[in-house]
Structure formats: structure tokens, C-alpha cells
């Protein structure tokens, strides 16, 4: 059991009373209480986090995916978080890292889009514009030592051409045909590059079906090997026809568990 007292005087102080049985949550809170008592330092540590986001370009569009888990340290706390959000018919943004920071940025972006609609001149905010805005905001906030602790992936169609970019919490950004944040950079990026280089060797790009299957394979590998991942993910496909987002379950096979000594 954990008792939390928040006082609103000069600083925020958190107390965790560990009454013998330490759960993961208690351990996490206690660690946070010991390390972070200064209100300013709360910006230098993520709290509820999302793991990898993946994206790849195919012939005719872009596909990005992110799983639906919000992790509170090692606790799998919220299992239906949407880390992927559609801005308009040509732009989707996905985020990993601190989910409160993600939601703050999400609200600001959605407000921008609503303003665009209200202006009513037919202009839509395209992915390169969103990318530029996000990069500058993240860079300037990190320069004030109040970073948004997120890695964003911006995907969409820029003037009919596929656009996929990555922006990290330091405001460093780049565009690439396949991107992944977090653990995905180690586990999924090689798989994506192999598939895309294989297609490029025969002078073509991935088809939509291949790209979606590649996402499924990468999410499966991440579910097997990333300890902070989940078996349900959102996948967004952006083509000239618009944005399609759906939630997919990871198709995982645990029969090998029977052969592992020590497993039940």
C-alpha cells in the first residue's frame, strides 16, 4: 500500500509509506520521491511512458504504428492509450516517451488544426509544416531546460509524395524512408531496412500489403523482446485516399514456452 500526500506550498513533495509488501508501484513511487523533490526536476524525468513507434514508406503512402500501452516504470498501467493521432487527411503524428507531454502537444496541434478549419480557406496543414513546428517547439523547450520528453514521428503525404520524419526530445529531426523510436530502433529498424533495401534492389518500393505486414512483423518482434511493450497496437495508413487507423492484435506464438526449462 502506498500513501501519497501532495502539498501545494512552495514545492511538491511526495511520500511513499512502504508497509512491508513492496509492489512495483510502491517501489517506483519511492524511487521518485527520493530522487525528485525539486519541482523543476519533474520535467527531467518521464512518468507515464509509451514505447516504440514505427513508420515506413511504401508505394503510394506511409504506414505508422504504435502500441497501446502506457507504462508507469515497469507497471503496465494503461492498456488502451492511443499514441497515434490523425491531424487531417494528410497528416498523422505518433509519439513515444512521456504521455503527459504527448497530450500537451496533441492538444496544441489539434487546436492549430481547428483554427485552420475555422479560417476556412481550404488550406490543410501538411506534414512538413507540422514537422517544422514540432522541431522548433521541441528544440526551444530543450534550450530552456524544460524538454518535452517525447520522440515524435510525423507521417503523411506532402504534395502527393510520402513524408516520414522523426523528431527527438532535443529538437533534432530528420526524414527517412523508415523510422523507429525507442526499442524499435534496435529491433524493428533492421527488419524494416532489410525489407525496403530488398525491394529497392529490384527497383521497386514496398506495396501497401507488404508494408502493413512488415509493421505486424515488427510489432510481434517487439512484443516478444521489449519488456515494456504490449500485444495491441494502432496502425495508421496514409494514402491519397486519406487516413485509415485501426487497432490490431499482435499474433504471437508462445509454444516455445513449453520447451523452456523453468517455465510452467
Amino acid at each position, binding site marked *: 500500500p502506498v500513501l501519497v500526500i501532495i502539498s501545494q506550498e512552495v514545492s511538491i513533495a511526495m511520500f511513499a509509506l512502504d508497509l512491508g509488501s513492496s509492489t512495483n508501484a510502491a517501489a517506483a513511487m519511492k524511487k521518485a520521491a527520493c530522487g525528485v523533490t525539486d519541482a523543476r526536476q519533474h520535467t527531467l524525468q518521464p512518468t507515464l511512458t509509451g514505447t516504440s513507434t514505427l513508420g515506413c514508406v511504401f508505394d503510394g503512402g506511409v504506414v505508422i504504428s504504435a502500441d497501446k500501452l502506457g507504462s508507469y516504470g515497469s507497471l503496465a498501467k494503461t492498456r488502451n492509450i492511443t499514441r497515434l493521432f490523425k491531424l487531417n487527411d494528410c497528416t498523422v503524428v505518433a509519439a513515444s516517451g512521456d504521455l503527459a507531454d504527448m497530450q500537451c502537444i496533441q492538444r496544441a496541434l489539434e487546436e492549430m488544426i481547428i483554427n485552420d478549419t475555422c479560417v476556412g480557406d481550404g488550406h490543410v496543414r501538411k506534414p512538413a509544416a507540422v514537422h517544422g513546428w514540432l*522541431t522548433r517547439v521541441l528544440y526551444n523547450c*530543450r534550450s530552456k531546460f524544460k524538454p518535452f520528453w517525447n520522440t515524435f514521428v510525423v507521417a503523411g503525404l506532402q504534395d502527393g509524395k510520402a513524408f516520414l520524419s522523426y523528431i*527527438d526530445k532535443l529538437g533534432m*529531426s530528420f526524414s527517412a524512408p523508415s523510422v523507429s523510436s525507442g526499442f524499435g*530502433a534496435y529491433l524493428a529498424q533492421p527488419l524494416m531496412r532489410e525489407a525496403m533495401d530488398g525491394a529497392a534492389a529490384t527497383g521497386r518500393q514496398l506495396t501497401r500489403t507488404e508494408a502493413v505486414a512488415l509493421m505486424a512483423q515488427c510489432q510481434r518482434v517487439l512484443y516478444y523482446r521489449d519488456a515494456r511493450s504490449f500485444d495491441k497496437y494502432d496502425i495508421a495508413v496514409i494514402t491519397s485516399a486519406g487516413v485509415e487507423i485501426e487497432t490490431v492484435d499482435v499474433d504471437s506464438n508462445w509454444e516455445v514456452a513449453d520447451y523452456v526449462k523453468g517455465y510452467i
Partner: protein
Amino acid sequence: NAEYMGGHTRLSEGYSILSRDVERIQSIGKNCVIGQAGFHGDNQFLYKVLQTRAKIFEFDHGQALDCHSTASLLSNLLYSRRFFPILSYCLVAGVEQDSQGQWKGRVYGYDVVGSFESRPCEATGEAGTLMLPLLDNQVEFKNLGPNAERVPLTRERAVGLIQDVLQAATERDIMTGDFGQIVLIDKDGVQQRRIPLRRD
């Protein structure tokens, strides 16, 4: 009467390759390019500021920034952040006309807080120390014995030298590779080409 600048296109973070296709050499004005190594976020920021200042200069003075002015501007921009440095290791290269109207190539090397110097050749970045000795030997003919042939640097030889130097750096530095971006600056402007480098 011309300058060559070479750079690679790999963006890495720790032991990961983030992108194989990030160009580090960009132009400022008509006869000048800036190559940037270091923190990519700061590079992007610095280039935006420099580009904006160059545009403002053109609007105010009716002519483009020339090479030594760009170099001086960059030094001031970097020093203005003396106590929170822009972690960008820059090289400015370009051609400019001297008092007799002859076009001369110039290279300026910087540190992160803006101290700069014009030199015959310069290399910067993670693999800068790998490339500089070879350049010193072949461009400035340093450490050659008295009987060694000092081949003058023509354009063809300069391109070959830049390619060799990039390949050499790629062999030994893990952060260098993928593609080499080679830029030629002369009085007619800027031309670019790419060479493949090792992808490991």
C-alpha cells in the same frame, strides 16, 4: 579559384544509425557553403539563423553575402552563445574576389564558440583527426621528404583527394559512412555530387 568540400551523410546516435541520408553541406549565398558536424539539432537551428541573416543582408544591401562576410557572421553568431554553446563544428568554404578581381578559394574552420581561421585545408567532426593528416600532406605538402614529388592540386586531383579522404575516414570511424557528399564551389556557383561509402 575553386573550393571543394566533402562530407558524409550518416546520422548516428550512440551505436545506432538514425539515417543514411542526411546532407550536412548546405549553401549560403551564391558562392559559399557551410558544412556542419556535431549536434544535428543545433546544426539545423544554426543554419536556419544563418540563412535568415543572409536573406536580411540581401534585402538591406542589395547584394548577396560574400564568403568572408559569411564567415565573420557565423563567428559572431557562435560567440553570442558563448555561455550556452551551439554544438556545431562548422566549416565555411567558398570563393571570393580579391582586390584584383581574381577569384580565390577560401576555407574557414571554427570551434563551437566562434574562433575561426582561414586555412588552405581543414577537416572537422568525429573523423576530422583521421582526415587532416592526409590533407596536410597532399594539399600543403607537409612532412614530405626533399625528393618527394609535390603534385599541384588541380580540380580533378582535388576531387580524387576528397574521395580518398572520405573513404579513409569511413574505414576507421564507425560514425562515418553511407554516402559522401562532395560539393564544388567556384565563381559560377555550387555543384554537388554523391559517392557511395561503406555502409557498415
